[in-house]
């Protein structure tokens, strides 16, 4: 069943990690431009609001899915048969955001402040480490679980002082709000202390990978074209995304597209390329901070094999 050699389109499903946003721009561009169709793929996009992409993917109910390294490793440890086939961003784009009036300029300032988050173990480990590296006392950071509260009003109400957000989405939105001054500590600025990792990335089902590698290749081919387009034409790409998902805020999408257009790939590698040492460092961090209990051979968690050959 190779989609390339007939008029028959191969129907395949992609499950998003979240509501469509600029992280997904390349996919929406490729879909809109008919590039998947050119590769013989009829792509269906499913968007969830809750967790569970990995399980669904593992069962083969979706062929592709958007996931994060911090889910991929535990999922593989739970023997869910999925593999990361491309990273959407080569570097972590997350940061810790606070109101500028709170005065958090460096990780040391987190001492005595309250973190509002999901209560996940990764959050605590990272923040502890950051504070420790800066010579602070991690014990002095307060934690409160806030679910899906809107961050900015939450901080303005003084319910907590800083949150974990995406630079390319939440921070842009916050900067757009009238009269809200914010500070951010970007994780990527502290790689001497904490690891970098891939988030978000594209994963696929192992069975599909072994049975129909051409499909995976074709899929990534088209996807790559989409992200290349998003890099060179951020405004047009944003328009395409908005056309597909008209509910999104136009200003936010446009600004975010600008922000990400320079970040979809690094200088040294093609789009989607994953490096062994980044996976290794991250896996080690998870293990050391007790988030995972067993070690894992990360070579099997990801693959660059299906990326378009760079010529």
């Amino acid at each position, binding site marked *: 069943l190779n989609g390339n050699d007939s008029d028959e389109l191969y129907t395949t499903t992609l499950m998003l990690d979240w509501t469509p946003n600029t992280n997904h721009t390349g996919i929406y561009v490729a879909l809109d431009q008919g590039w998947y169709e050119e590769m013989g793929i009829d792509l269906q996009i*499913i968007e969830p609001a809750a967790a569970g992409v990995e399980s669904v993917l593992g*069962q083969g109910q979706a062929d592709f899915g958007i996931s994060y390294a911090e889910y991929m490793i535990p999922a593989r440890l739970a023997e869910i048969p999925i593999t990361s086939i491309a990273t959407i961003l080569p570097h972590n784009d997350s940061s810790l955001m606070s109101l500028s009036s709170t005065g958090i300029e460096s990780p040391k300032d987190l001492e005595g402040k309250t973190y509002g988050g999901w209560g996940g173990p990764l959050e605590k480990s990272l923040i502890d480490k950051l504070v420790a590296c800066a010579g602070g006392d991690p014990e002095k950071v307060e934690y409160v679980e806030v679910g899906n509260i*809107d961050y900015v009003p939450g901080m303005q109400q003084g319910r907590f002082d800083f949150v974990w957000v995406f630079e390319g989405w939440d921070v842009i939105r916050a900067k757009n709000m009238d009269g809200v001054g914010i500070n951010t500590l970007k994780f990527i600025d502290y790689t001497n202390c904490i690891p970098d990792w891939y988030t978000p990335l594209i994963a696929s089902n192992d069975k599909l990978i072994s049975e129909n590698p051409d499909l995976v290749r074709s899929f990534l081919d088209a996807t790559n074209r989409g992200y290349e387009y998003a890099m060179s034409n951020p405004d047009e790409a944003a328009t395409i995304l908005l056309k597909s998902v008209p509910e999104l*805020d136009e200003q936010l999408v446009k600004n975010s597209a600008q922000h990400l257009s320079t970040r979809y790939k690094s200088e040294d590698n093609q789009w989607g390329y994953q490096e062994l040492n980044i996976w290794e460092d991250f896996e080690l961090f998870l293990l050391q901070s007790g988030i995972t209990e067993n070690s894992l051979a990360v070579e099997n968690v990801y693959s660059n094999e299906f990326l378009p050959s760079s010529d």
Partner: protein
Amino acid sequence: MNNFRQKIKEYFPSLLFLIFSIFFWEWYVKSGYVSDYLIPAPSAIGLSFLEHISILPDHIFTTMLEALVGLFFAVVIGVLIAVLIAGIPFIRRVLYPIIVVSQNIPILALAPLLAVWFGFGLAPKVIIVVLIGFFPIVVNTTDGLMNADKDMVSLVRGLGANRWQVFRLVLFPSAVPAFFSGLRIASAYAVIGAVIAEWMGASSGLGLFLIRSQRSFQTDQIFMAIVVIAMLSISLFLSIQVLSNVAMPWRKTLVDLGEK
């Protein structure tokens, strides 16, 4: 015509109250006591409605289809189960606990399973609406069936009615009011049930619309969606009110302590 005027008169206070509330709300937001990214002004909600008027019908159709199909099956399954529970003590003991459990499985935890078993089409949403909606119908209908007048049951059994006839002639009619209470509760949950179901993975529907709005921080859009959902629910609720009046013509006048 006269009847219509009567209704208008009857609902005039509600309308007035509504209009007043809206104006108060507008004033409250505009006066700056609350940031408009927490609660938008009604006018902003209205504008947002106009802005999305072209894409809304599709979403509404999807969600209503899920809600109505779900409600339909909730009724069928709910009544069936109620009959079994009321009719067969053994089944009552086995089934009732299971049904209570069914209400306590977090849908979030169920999501991956449902996706694996039923994919992402209409089916999983309908299942969730059914799961949410059949419970009040079961509880109420069961109680209605079991509270039937014993003298009436004796009467028809004395005439040699078989089980099915006892059900048809006495228990069902006795359970109609309770059934409708249950159906009203279920109907109020149907639309929101579909919305929640859509959060587990969908490609159209108000739930999708809602979460997209929330993820891009568009409070006016969120509230607009909520207003639309509320409207749909109220329409459904009122339709069932009307249906219940039609189905119970012998209960023209309920006890009304209002006036003499």
